[in-house]
């Protein structure tokens, strides 16, 4: 009887701890919100004044955002694109997500390191919200670097890790309590760990973009149909979107 009680108690503790660990995993923005299709971030072509690689961190940032080590490798296909471009007309609500290495919106100064503003406006039938825009601004008060900088890192923040984290917000993720994850609200200077997502980050992203909340084309580590592949039903595609006339459907 004593053994039975102790065993029951042990299972109770394990069960509660497992449940608690689930509670302390990834967090979605509240209310939940996603993109209908993979957004393309326009990364400010002027780069950052404090980054001394060949283009002020533009190429490094674009590569980090598009990397399969980041959100596109989570398992929901290609959920985000990035390219260098003109961001002079940055504005919420224009449907074009932009990433600035400064703060032309005058919203992130003083103690703010970087901020992602999501604009959302319409609700789907499943109760989630559709993101229309998500712009990122950066406080120039702090020093940033990239893995491409020839002089290495000294007391600076890696812009790749910062921006993978910020684009995580832009995709609908809040902060996680899992230490070591990209969405954990801590990034030490000279630590580019956040540029590579952890299992917890992937789980959070997949909760938003795998088979439901919208988003996603092909690519990443998904082994189903990629964008443009022929398909018969939604389940054939990484994006869960098989569209077109019968006989010539393709993954979107």
């Amino acid at each position, binding site marked *: 009887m004593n053994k039975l009680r102790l065993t029951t108690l042990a299972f109770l503790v394990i069960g509660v701890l497992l*449940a608690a660990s689930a509670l302390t995993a990834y967090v979605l923005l509240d209310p939940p919100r996603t993109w209908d299709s993979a957004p393309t971030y326009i990364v400010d072509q002027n780069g950052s004044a404090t980054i001394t690689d060949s283009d002020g961190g533009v190429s490094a940032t674009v590569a980090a955002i598009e990397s399969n080590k980041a959100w596109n490798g989570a398992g929901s296909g290609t959920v985000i694109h990035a390219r260098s471009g003109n961001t002079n007309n940055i504005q919420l609500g224009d449907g074009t997500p932009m990433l600035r290495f400064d703060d032309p919106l005058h919203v992130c100064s003083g103690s703010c390191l970087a901020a992602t503003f999501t604009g*959302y406006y319409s609700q789907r039938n499943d109760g989630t919200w559709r993101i229309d825009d998500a712009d990122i601004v950066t406080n120039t008060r702090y020093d940033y670097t990239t893995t491409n900088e020839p002089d290495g890192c000294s007391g600076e923040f890696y812009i790749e890790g910062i921006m993978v984290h910020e684009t995580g*917000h832009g995709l609908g993720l809040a*902060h996680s309590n899992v230490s070591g994850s990209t969405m954990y609200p*801590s990034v030490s200077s000279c630590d580019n760990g956040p540029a590579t997502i952890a299992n917890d980050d992937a789980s959070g992203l997949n909760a938003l973009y795998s088979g439901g909340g919208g988003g996603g084309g092909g690519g990443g580590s998904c082994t189903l149909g990629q964008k443009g592949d022929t398909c018969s039903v939604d389940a054939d595609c990484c994006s869960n979107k098989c569209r077109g006339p019968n006989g010539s459907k393709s993954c979107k």
Partner: protein
Amino acid sequence: MKRTLLIGALLVALAATVAIPARASTFVAMSDQELVAQSDAIVVGEVLETFSYWNDAHTMIFTEAVVNVQRVVAGDAPALINVRTAGGVVGSYKVEASGFPIFRQGQRQLLFVHRSAAGTVELTGYRQGQFFVQRTAEGREMAVPALGNVRLLTRTGELAPRPRTVPLESLISAVQTINDRVQRGPITK
């Protein structure tokens, strides 16, 4: 012994379940001295109303809270100040950045405010400069950090200690002690 084990297990479970995940943005912690020195005024007041609008360039939605100043703790402030923060709702369109300050009508707050380069009055240190004033069952007024689950970073990127809920008068006293060594100009509405 078994009862002890059971109680221990429940305590472990409770401790684990109350570790609710943080929801935050990326901010660097300011010291108390910085918070006071970089504020033009520190006030206790009530939010009379809030309103949101697109800025003139139509690039961002801002929200302003009209605060009825009940007590000037430090610096100088008029009876009414409009405190601005980024984000808000206009029509059916919402703009939000988690971790940015939020104001609700009827809230009584202690606020660290400064005039921005744009001329608007804003919180110093974002939510770090915002405390909700709440009364205990015993009638004691407490200053509750508005940070909630927002975590601040140290300048080297580590997690900074969380500010604690303290009696309002203790916070005011601490602020005034620091303020005695700080000179600042008046803030206007």
